[in-house]
């Protein structure tokens, strides 16, 4: 072994991500020998937890996978089960669900950008620092978060872990007087989203280049920019129905992590999330978001993964515009007061997949029911699990570029990189914190 320089970079716990995780990089003879993104959030076993429960409990149980994208889990579960029952929800229900989802996108992206990612760029390691030195950004965060929370509360009953979304429909539909006050807030919120877009486009990134990524995203149902669909598309030209997810996502268990790792079509790492969605569907954006996108570094199509945060800001802007449309449509459609649809006659045995584009990427829920509607098998594949392989690839690329740098700088680059993905370890089971970089 003598003569060969070996060292290991360890980031034992990465802060400001959802959940607990760590990064280990082995460097041997000037080359990266091994990269591990370890998720050591305790195991949650949702695929097992749901067994034996009734289908109608799925939204409530699976929302507990993760608070921040609980709405996504609820909607994925609901879609999967409705697919089994071959049930088509009403137009009204769909509008409510879409609006709800946008509320989550706004809240989750805002929190991710402002609280988890921005402090890296603004160099404010603690909250009070952030709140006092960057009052504008703190305010933007508060306003957008509150907006997202209000939307989700009005539709779902509370800011997260919604109680009002069920298989079949809502238990109570929002009334005109609940929704209309949103319009004014939505209108004001554009400036906050634009502020984030400006701020993020103007950043100098600590990393020049990340590994080239293959993007995957669900093709939205309908013409606009959207988050629900039945077909997934990859940037290498391939397309498949989400129902076949098992064939194209290879989920495997790795020894070092509580999160499973996914690759696409036999081993290829890939990236899901805001950047992937914009890569495919920027042309579906509304006018305002589109013009921001066109001027941004994302427009080139091959951007550094760190721009994911900017992609999220653009999605916030788009979500605000879309929400205004949905609220207006709900108003125009009249406010029906149907209660949750009773599905009793439709319950049957079967299998179904529901895929939803969550803030961090595609989320798949799969269920198998018996004839009484009891869950006999389940599977959930979260975006963070899908991104893990790509993050490891990116880490590898960054370490090779910056190996010569001061270890503290390198560590900070790596943390920034990981945070850009906003890996949700709670989802993947939970995620990361950094204590030191040790060179052995």
């Amino acid at each position, binding site marked *: 072994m003598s003569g060969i320089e070996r060292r290991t970079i360890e980031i034992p716990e990465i802060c*400001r991500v959802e959940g607990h995780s760590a990064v280990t990089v082995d460097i041997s003879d000037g080359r990266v020998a091994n990269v591990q993104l370890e998720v050591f959030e*305790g*195991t949650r*076993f949702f695929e097992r*937890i749901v067994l034996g429960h009734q289908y109608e409990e799925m939204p409530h149980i699976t929302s507990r996978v993760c608070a921040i994208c609980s709405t996504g889990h609820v909607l994925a579960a609901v879609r999967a089960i409705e697919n089994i029952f071959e049930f088509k929800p009403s137009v009204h229900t769909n509008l409510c669900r879409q609006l709800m989802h946008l509320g989550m996108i706004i809240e989750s992206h805002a929190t991710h950008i402002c609280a988890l990612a921005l402090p890296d760029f603004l160099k404010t390691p603690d909250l009070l620092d952030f709140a006092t030195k960057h009052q504008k950004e703190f305010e933007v965060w508060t306003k957008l978060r509150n907006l997202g929370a209000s939307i989700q509360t009005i539709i779902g009953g509370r800011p997260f872990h919604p109680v009002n979304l069920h298989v079949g429909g809502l238990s109570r539909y929002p009334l005109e007087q609940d929704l209309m006050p949103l319009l004014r807030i939505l209108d004001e919120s554009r400036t906050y989203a634009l502020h984030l877009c400006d701020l993020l486009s103007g950043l100098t990134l600590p990393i020049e280049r990340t590994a080239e990524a293959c993007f995957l995203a669900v093709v939205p149902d309908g013409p606009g920019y959207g988050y629900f669909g039945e077909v997934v598309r990859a940037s290498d030209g391939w397309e498949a129905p989400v129902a076949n997810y098992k064939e194209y996502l290879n989920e495997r268990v790795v020894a070092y992590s509580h999160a499973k790792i996914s690759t696409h079509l036999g081993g290829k790492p890939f990236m899901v999330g805001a950047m992937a969605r914009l890569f495919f569907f920027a042309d579906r954006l509304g006018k305002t978001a589109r013009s921001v996108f066109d001027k941004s570094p994302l427009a080139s199509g091959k951007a550094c993964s760190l721009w994911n945060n900017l992609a999220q800001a653009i999605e916030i802007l788009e979500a605000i515009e879309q929400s205004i449309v949905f609220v207006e449509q709900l108003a125009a459609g009249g406010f029906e007061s149907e209660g949750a649809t009773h599905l009793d006659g439709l319950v049957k045995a079967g299998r179904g997949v529901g895929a939803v584009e969550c803030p961090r990427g595609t989320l798949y829920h799969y269920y198998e029911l018996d004839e009484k509607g009891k869950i006999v098998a389940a599977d959930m594949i979260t975006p963070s699990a899908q991104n893990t392989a790509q993050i490891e690839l990116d880490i590898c690329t960054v370490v090779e570029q910056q190996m010569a740098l001061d270890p503290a700088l390198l560590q900070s680059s790596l943390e920034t990189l990981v945070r850009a993905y906003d890996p949700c370890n*709670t989802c993947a089971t939970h995620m990361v914190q950094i204590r030191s970089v040790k060179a052995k």
Partner: protein
Amino acid sequence: MTTTTEQKTLPCIAVESLTGCAGELLVILDNLEQLLPFVRIVSFPFAQSKNECGPVDITFVEGSVSQPHDIEKLKRIRSNSRWLIAIGNCAVWGCVQAGACSRCHVEDMLHAVYGDESPIKALPARPLSDFVHVDAMLSGCPINATQFLSVTASLLKDHLPYITHKPVCLECKLRENPCVLIEKNLPCLGPVTAAGCGALCPSLGAACYGCWGPCQSPQMAAMATILQEKGYQLDEVLSRLQTFGAPDTLFARMKPDAEVA
């Protein structure tokens, strides 16, 4: 906003998490503006990267104990904290993962989710109070922000908060909701679930599914009897009652024919 010098003399709080969905952390983040003038946040790994592990006045802990690492961390937190407060259903009851553990062995779960060769060490999910002394428990999934702030206010004065865990039915009736258990025969768990959410589900016409965990002295056997009379199968009833972590001990008094599966 207070200046840095004043910050030094403020009570220190920490927000830590074990294994959970981070919901409580979000609730705290959402109420940060109200807290910041009165406390110094010395540790909050979810939201800041400069975290100390020195002594703190109040530590709020979210999440359940689900792996050996969590126990170590919890013990360290306990020894550093004057008040240790369990927040959220995971920390108070163990939430859905504990609920499942009472119906299935953790090894089986590991096997079911991660396959045969998994090196992962998992423990059956347990609430904090199974391992350390907990000064107060604030249930909720997620916790109620108003309740959290008033509990924090008490603790900042070094007073134990008043938390009663009366049933959801109380809040439901105070909001004058028609009872969905009676009128719609929905499997409402309001009678055995701790209040605090404001009877959210029944107020929307849906059944309470028990996300706040058991109320004080829940009558599980009676609840099971009544749901069975409404046509729900016993195994379904039990799995609903235990979904959000109600421990087996609460079912001890159930009649032999209603033995916990």
